[in-house]
């Protein structure tokens, strides 16, 4: 479990990092390293070049001064978890990040790394999907912004092109009346989730349900959201949310978790 040989460059600026990434098709960006380093050690990833983003303080911001929450991609999961600003305005992120690994993993792991890695069992992409987050990408040659639906393409697959870097995640504010819950089922504490659900509900005003484990990417349960806005109860909405899942156990699991999450926000 030693990585295959690779070149290592510590980024000195965002533009420098983008330049390095643009210069090598086989370059990989290193953020917290909680997934990439094991993949290197297993020799599942064989990059030519590692561009270490960790020196880039400019990517580690957490700022809600403009009303929306702007999360620098290099913001540590532990920083997110401890943020009073996030707790006050975006409690769903706090509820979700508590399920990410263990404290040591969250201390190194970054929000952007979790999103860009796009593990189907990861919690933060699901919470950000429920929150209608926008994902800001940069490359040497330009910038673009994607929705969760556009970004997450499949298991460990995103719309990020070679040379492109996730730099910031922008999370709109939820209505003041919104309540949120994140529930998951995992084999053990801190393990990746088998299934999970993120819900946001401001009755009659806003409803969002995102599912973990329904597909290889986070899934919004649009029919259930509409039903909630039309006054459906937790049981009915939960059944609608999981209705399309073929596997009977997984469907039952997501129905149960959705109903319990909705019970919490409607209690």
């Amino acid at each position, binding site marked *: *479990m*030693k*990585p*295959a*040989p690779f070149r290592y460059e510590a980024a000195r600026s965002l533009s420098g990092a983008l330049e390095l990434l643009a210069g090598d098709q086989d370059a990989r960006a290193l953020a917290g390293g909680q997934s990439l380093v*094991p993949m290197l050690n*297993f*020799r599942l990833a064989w990059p030519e070049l590692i561009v270490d983003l960790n020196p880039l303080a400019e990517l580690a911001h957490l700022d809600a001064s403009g009303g929306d929450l702007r999360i620098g991609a290099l913001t540590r999961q532990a920083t997110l978890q401890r943020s009073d600003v996030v707790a006050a305005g975006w409690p769903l992120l706090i509820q979700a990040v508590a399920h990410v690994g*263990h404290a040591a993993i969250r201390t190194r792991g970054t929000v952007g790394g979790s999103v860009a890695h796009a593990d189907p069992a990861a919690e933060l992409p699901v919470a950000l999907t429920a929150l209608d987050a926008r994902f800001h990408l940069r490359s040497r040659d330009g910038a673009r912004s994607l929705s969760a639906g556009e970004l997450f393409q499949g298991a460990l697959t995103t719309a990020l092109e070679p040379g492109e870097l996730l730099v910031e995640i922008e999370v709109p504010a939820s209505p003041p009346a919104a309540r949120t819950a994140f529930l998951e*089922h995992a*084999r*053990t*504490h*801190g*393990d*990746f989730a*088998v299934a999970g659900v993120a819900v946001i509900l401001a009755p009659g005003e806003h409803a969002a349900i995102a599912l973990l484990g329904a597909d290889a990417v986070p899934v919004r349960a649009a029919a259930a959201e509409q039903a909630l806005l039309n006054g459906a109860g937790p049981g009915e909405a939960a059944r609608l949310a999981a209705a399309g899942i073929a596997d*009977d*156990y997984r469907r*039952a*699991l997501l*129905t*149960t*978790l959705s*109903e*319990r999450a909705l019970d919490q926000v409607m209690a």
Partner: protein
Amino acid sequence: MTRSELIGAPLPRREDARVLRGETRYVDDVVVPGMAHAAFVRSPHAHAGITSISVPQDAEGLIAVVTAADIGAAVRAFPVMEPDDMEVNHAEAHPVLAAGEVRYAGQPVAAVIARTRALAEDAAELVDVQYDERPAVLAPRESGVVLTRWSGGAGDVDAAFAAAAHVVSGSYALPRLIAAPMETRGCVAAYEPVDDCLTVWCSAQDIHRPLAQLSHILDRPPAGIRLIVPDVGGAFGSKGVIAPEIAAVAASAMRLGIPVKWTEDRLENLVGGTQGRGIEGDLQLALAADGRMLGLRARLWADLGGYLLTTTPIPPHTAATLITGVYDIAAAAVTVVGALTHKVPTGPYRGAGRPDAAYMVEALVDEAARRTGIHRVELRRRNLIRSFPHRTATGLEYDSGDYERCLDLALELAADGGRARDRDGGDGDVVRGRGIALYVERAGGGWESAEIELGPGGTFAIASSSSPHGQGHDITFAQIAADRLGVPIQDIELHFGDSATSPPGVGTFGSRSVAMAGSAVAIAADDLLAQARARTGAAIVDWQRLAEVAGPDRPRAAARFQSANVFSSGAYVATVRIDCGTGELTVERLIAVDDAGTLINPLLVHGQVIGGAVQALGECLTEEAVYDDGGQPRTGSFLDYSLLTAAEVPPIVTGEVQTPSPFNPLGAKGAGEGGAVGTLPAVANAVTDALGGRRVEPPFTSDKLWRALHDDPRGDGR
């Protein structure tokens, strides 16, 4: 502390501070000048012929690529143990490196020796092995190739079944498990031509077995090998046989004339380390109308893997011989077949056949209780062995025990007579169950030795043949010696783990160290005291004065202690809850009552019980070595092989019964495995109870339990 206070004193281990401060020296900390590093080319296939091996001529830091063709003449296949009356197919012993054929994914094919481990891994990528893939057999019942076989029994089994009012049967299966010690395996091997001595530092449970195995494999007299076991970070049975890689490294070090280190990484350990359990069985029990057990039939199949390693035959033999459990069953017919499968070999893992037997017989007894309508506690009471020594139908001789006292204490601690399952726990969508299980386990046996000597300052040095890997031999043996000699415990110093200085013995396994090596310490200390009394003419010896007067002629003593097996036992009660919406199992409470004979150090015994119980909870909740249909291991990292965290561990209440063994001067039995033996059947029976009699096999994962619950008509109140 007076003599009577030392035996039974809960003293902490003297090495704790050193371990916690990181001042330990594991085998990976051993550095020999000029040392090279090994990595291995491993089979990617479960079963294949090797058609060619092409070795890189040059690579950065590469010293050599060693294959079976290079060392074939210098090494033999592994020696294989032969338990009593077991047929063992020695022709299928594990080779050091694969020659012509591979029989499991991960089997070592070539050792790549380079300046660093990273460079060795890089060079290993350049070794090109061509394979001719062959079909893989994964199920032991479908194997057709028998590696081991044991049959035993006594009494007229057919007559017992003919006379039975009830016959209950059950089929049971335990998956393979991975021992997952924090410290993986590894060695440093250095050959010194001047004195023709091969020195091997090895992460192992003891020195004697690795030395004997290397002596056989390298065809080298034991005196030509020095085996040193430094600090060891856990073994759980998996380090009682050397890894084939260690033999390959030793042979390579001799061939190349340079010291070589191999430190197994986690991936290697998960796919290439011996696995535990992997056994299934069909059992039938004949009962009289009053619930008396008349006869037992058992046919077991063990999934032994592609080859036999030294210790591979042991667990199925232990499982088969213990299959009648704590019950007085006069007639039994038991067969266990160890079959070749295309997976890594199995071997002992904490319990090593004991949990397998307890799981099967205790589930069968619960089934009998459901079928006969006799309460499960009452049914057990009616059939317990009550007089000792007791010879079982399978040929074991139980030395002593008080099974009913264990059961009574467990029920008292559970504050309940064994109440039936509870469908409505008051908090909605859950079912609860309670399980009771009794166990008896083989411990001790064989022999160990000790040497004790009065040092110049009036203190004592003891060399034990046994060696520790976490158990706490040092404080325990010091308690024994200080007690026998009537001296302060700090005056006793223990030495372990170096074949150059340790007395002969067998090793640390099978819950045997106190009963065997501890008894040798006691007898050696008694001898020393008798010598000192004879010399001084005083009943109370002034040791310091004696040391001064005696000079170099200070007294010393040695003892070898041998005995038959002793049998520990216990009673466990588990309470579980299953979430009907998710299938999630929560073990709410575990009562663990163990009888390990006379306890020398109850603090360490408590630790052993908790540790064993937690490993068994992992077996119940999550652990399973999984192979796909082609025989590829799918549990190659801790992402996939799920170990428990502290969050999953329930409150564990322990209780003890101390029935001294008549077979040793301490009255000791064994405590290292009881927690791992009793917990599994108790939790399994609790799960079956919660499921209303429906059985599933461990691990009791959420999906299995949810499916079991939802196929269930659940007519009672839901």
